[in-house]
């Protein structure tokens, strides 16, 4: 498969006062279309930073990132906002749903930026909620849902625009074992059946087992490639 994400010589540092603290050092990485990649590593290894860079939530210090052939490091803030709305679906550790909106409305949020009619939006939202098996709870507010259900709503929100890549930052980090397994199976299904490219940050080995490729980050450096047959 052709690479959908190309990371070329990317470096990133954070500043503490006058001192630069390198977080990512000269990273090169290719992610093929339809891949399920797990980025692992200890806390502070730079995996979330790398994920943020791939999803255009942060800026590189040097290097380039191409997604679907577009150099996202060359885009302006406004162009990046538009690009994210179309190309990236986000799944966060703490679900990050808007508490005053129902499950349906949360999933509808990204579609408000598109030119879809109300009827078309409703169809898309219902389909996304059907995929995550939450159709019957669409009128519930986040506070009325369990952690696993909230994460499923977040996944529905991530896939409703049919993005090019799905990025997940510790998607099971705040869930119990049963809910975590359900979420991972759902992501696995999205990857297998819908051929979604998924990039997942985790330090849970059981979560990483679902990925087809595991890359490890250690102190800002990317280590060996580890391919596996997912369980």
């Amino acid at each position, binding site marked *: 498969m052709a690479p959908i994400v190309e990371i070329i010589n990317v470096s990133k540092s954070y500043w503490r006062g006058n001192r630069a603290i390198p977080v990512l050092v000269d990273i090169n990485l290719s992610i093929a279309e339809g891949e399920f990649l797990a980025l692992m590593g200890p806390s502070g290894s730079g995996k979330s*930073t790398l994920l*943020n860079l791939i*999803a255009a*939530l*942060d800026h590189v210090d040097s290097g380039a990132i191409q997604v679907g052939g577009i150099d996202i490091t060359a885009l302006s*803030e*406004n162009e990046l*906002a*538009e*690009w*994210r*709305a*179309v190309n990236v679906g*986000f799944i*966060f*550790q*703490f679900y*990050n749903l*808007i*508490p*005053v*909106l129902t499950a349906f*409305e949360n999933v*509808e*949020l*990204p579609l*408000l*930026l598109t030119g879809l009619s109300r009827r078309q939006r409703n169809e898309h939202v219902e389909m996304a909620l059907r995929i995550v098996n939450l159709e019957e709870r669409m009128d519930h507010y986040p506070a009325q849902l369990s952690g696993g259900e909230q994460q499923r709503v977040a996944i529905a*929100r991530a896939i409703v625009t049919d993005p090019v890549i799905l990025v997940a930052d510790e998607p099971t980090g*705040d869930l119990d074992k049963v809910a975590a397994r359900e979420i991972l199976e759902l992501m696995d299904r999205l990857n297998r059946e819908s051929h979604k490219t998924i990039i997942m940050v985790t330090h849970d080995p059981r979560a990483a087992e679902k990925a087809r490729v595991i890359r490890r980050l250690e102190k800002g450096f990317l280590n060996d490639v580890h391919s596996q047959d997912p369980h």
Partner: protein
Amino acid sequence: MFILKILIRNAFRHKLRTLLTILGITVAILAFGLLRTFINAWYGGVEASSASRLVTRSSISLIFHLPLSYKDKIRQVDGVKTVSWGTWFGGVYIDEKNFFANFAVDAKSYLELYPEFLLSPEETTAFLRDRKGFVAGRKLAKRFGWKIGDTVTLRGTIYPGNWDFVLRGIYRGRNETIDETQFFFHWDYLNEMMKKRGSARADQAGWYMVGVTRPDRATEVALAIDRTFKNSLAETLTETEKAFQLSFISMSETIIMAIELVSFVVIIIIIAVVANTMSMTYRERIGEYAIFKTLGYRGWRIAGMIVGESMIITLIGSFLGIVLTFPVAGIVGKMLSNYFPVFNVAEEAIYMDLAASIIIGLIAAIVPTYRSVRIRIADGLRRIG
């Protein structure tokens, strides 16, 4: 619709905080509206003054009277249509606390010159026929329960003795800016009594009211009148009715300025209160704004959410404040009716209330909006969890 839904739900996410903020805005707008009404009431006489009327008085002071003979000379000035005259009587009804304005006027010409005082033809005829008759404003008659035919006695302070008058008419104002608390009676009656007593006040008028043929000639006519009496024993000062009223108000200009200042201070305080509420909201929702940005929402959309929420809270509070201003002004107006015969909430006060609301809503949202638009997504997301 969706955005409005978010704005309303966000605005009431912390019900107690929002309700307290709304209460604060309501009280502030109510106070602002009342203070503006108070200022308008002060200028009530000016509002009601006519552009086609002049007032001629002694150039030294209002307390110095002018000879009655001036009326014929004034009448001869080119551009003069009607001349009337009057005197401040300063009578007391039963007790000094029952203050109201009372004048002796040349009845026929006065009613001709003041068409805004509406009297029925029967009442007008009855008043003109009875030299001891008087006319009272609707509010004044209501205040003391006077009915047509009632005899009312005033104790003279400038003109000593008890003076009996018979109520012959109750006038209504042509519009709500007209003072309906006045008491006026025949100058002839007062003058006859002065003559009988051999008083130096006989054949003296406190001031002349002059109707001009065309309002645009008012200044020219005023100068001509004053020129007529130049170098006489009683030189005159003629000015438009509006300028005459303003000269009274200028005496209390400092008080009005202080009230005006307080009204703006009230608005500044409430801006600080709403800004504080919006800042708390911003701090709590940094993560959410980052999520919106993550989903592709641009800065201006997020700015719209913050400004919109601030405006919703402010406008609800302001609406309640404006609605409450009317009954409260009614109560305050009754309490102060001795001093402010016209205490109506002016249209201008409502516009100022609305302008103040918009300013409050916008200014309160400036800092949170700026910060939320500027915040980097990665930094915002780090605040979650």
